[in-house]
């Protein structure tokens, strides 16, 4: 190696010929990131009247009054964050369990069916989840979960006032919708855990449970965390199904069963009827907040998932 270095330095520097094909399709491919930038900048520009009028007050304000042109985003932000985190709490254990089952060797037929089922769960359109949640899930959850829980735990404030539409119903349907994201990425990360680790654990006499819980899942931890964050991003931005069951109440509710509102649901319900200079701009600013938050969440999650898969492939 050492002897070849001077020889290499002695070679004249030749430039590679210009690759026209690469340049052309590179420009075409740039349309994707360009679209992303353009979307963000356009929303920023469209939201300007509201940003100028309210400033930072917009983020902490709780009013939503198109008549007096007084707008604040806090109830929407609260509803979005609350439904998303409740959905994550419900979906995470299930999603990871399914991923562990899918990665287990053997019984390929059953696993194939489970895998197809999870993929179909991802393929069902949001609006179909919405109509199902509205007519089937919400009445069921109201009668068989919310009323019994609220009836027994009367002293717990945040479990009071059951309602057929509200945060809890929205979180339930969101949990179903983010499950495929959680499962698919967790499965890939768990699969990327070096085989040697698992074999070592088994050779040392560890049981299946010990291998899974103390060896595989800890080494896939960062990736599963990334999958969780990515699913969080999906939950934050989900619109239609949530709009149909959230209950459309622009308040910060005191109970998880109460009607509330999310950022995307307000936009979906009100934007086509918004008039005047400030009202549409305020709605677009809600969209801007939404897109900024999901942007940060997604980039963070992608970096996490990529770094784990890379570490795993280096270790393997």
């Amino acid at each position: 190696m050492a002897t070849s270095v001077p020889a290499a330095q002695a070679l004249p520097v030749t430039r590679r010929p210009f690759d026209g094909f690469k340049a052309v399709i590179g420009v075409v491919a740039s349309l994707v990131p360009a679209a992303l930038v353009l979307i963000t900048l356009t929303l920023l520009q469209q939201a300007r009247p509201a940003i100028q009028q309210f400033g930072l007050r917009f983020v902490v304000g709780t009013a939503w009054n198109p008549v007096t042109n007084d707008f604040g985003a806090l109830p929407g932000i609260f509803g979005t964050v609350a439904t998303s985190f409740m959905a994550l709490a419900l979906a995470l254990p299930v999603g990871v369990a399914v991923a562990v089952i899918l990665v287990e060797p053997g019984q390929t037929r059953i696993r194939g069916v489970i895998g197809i089922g999870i993929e179909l769960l991802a393929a069902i359109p949001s609006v179909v989840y919405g109509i199902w949640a509205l007519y089937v899930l919400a009445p069921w959850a109201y009668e068989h979960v919310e009323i019994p829980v609220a009836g027994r735990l009367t002293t717990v404030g945040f479990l009071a006032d059951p309602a057929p539409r509200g945060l809890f119903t929205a979180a339930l349907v969101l949990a179903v919708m983010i499950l495929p994201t959680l499962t698919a990425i967790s499965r890939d990360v768990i699969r990327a855990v070096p085989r040697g680790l698992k074999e070592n654990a088994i050779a040392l006499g560890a049981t299946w449970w010990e291998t899974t819980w103390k060896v595989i899942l800890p080494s896939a931890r960062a990736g599963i965390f990334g999958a969780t964050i990515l699913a969080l991003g999906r939950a934050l931005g989900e619109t239609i199904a949530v709009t149909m069951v959230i209950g459309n109440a622009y308040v910060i509710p005191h109970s998880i069963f109460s009607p509330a509102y999310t950022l995307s649901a307000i936009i979906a319900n009100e934007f086509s009827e918004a008039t005047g200079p400030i009202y549409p701009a305020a709605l677009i600013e809600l969209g801007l907040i939404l897109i900024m938050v999901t942007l940060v969440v997604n980039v963070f999650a992608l970096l996490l998932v990529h770094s784990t898969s890379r570490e795993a492939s280096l270790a393997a």
Partner: protein
Amino acid sequence: MSQASLGIMYLLTVLALIPLALVLWFTIDKGLPSVIHPQFFFNAELPPCEPRCPAVLNGGVGHAIAGTAIMVGLASLMAIPIGVLAGVYLAEYSNAQWSAWVRLGCDVLVGTPSIAIGLFVYAFLVVPFHHFSGFSGAVALAILMLPIIARTTEGAVALIPNGLRESGLALGLARWRVSLQLILPAAAPGVITGALLAVARAGGETAPLLFTAFGAHILVLTPNEPMQALPLTVFRYALLPYKSLQAQAWGAALVLIVLVLAVNLVSRWVLRRQIALARSL
């Protein structure tokens, strides 16, 4: 301990699949009474007939099916060429610095809330022309499809063994000929899979159409005017208090689910052929 925990994990897996079964069951159960009448597919909607409805409702979703077909078709015309070329770039120049950014852009755009894309297209194409239009809906759907097509194309092209590329280059073919006339046809099944999945996703999207295509009560065939789409029918009618319109919503939901599941099954079959083909090369 191990047996019990494995059992619990299987139970959780079953729990995960219960919603799928329930959604399918209720959509079929409530949608079938609307769908079994052929006029459901051809007629446009009728105003609610309550309180005195005929035994057979005459309203249909023909206009929504036509609108969805036209908008998704237009969106495919825009998104497939761009998405496929972007995917070829990502796979063929995967080490280029810029392709890492394009890939990140794709992955972030997939996760971007579709309602934000709707707002963007509203500001970009609806406001300047002063009216809602099917075309603006198609653009919104195309933005949604683009990253899906790009990433699946990248995956399909990356599956093709290097030997094919090298033999093409060794024969003196230009780089673009190797990529577009040799590699891309070999990756065609995978590319088609991606396009099909993107079509299925776009066909089921509601949020980007709310302020772009907006919806219509009659059959519209010119993309310059507001258009109805199947997901819009489901969204708007499900929330109305009229049983006759709710029945149409369930029927439209059933049509959507059947379309989406059919596309998914076909694409799975195509993908299996792609993997077999790539192995044989």
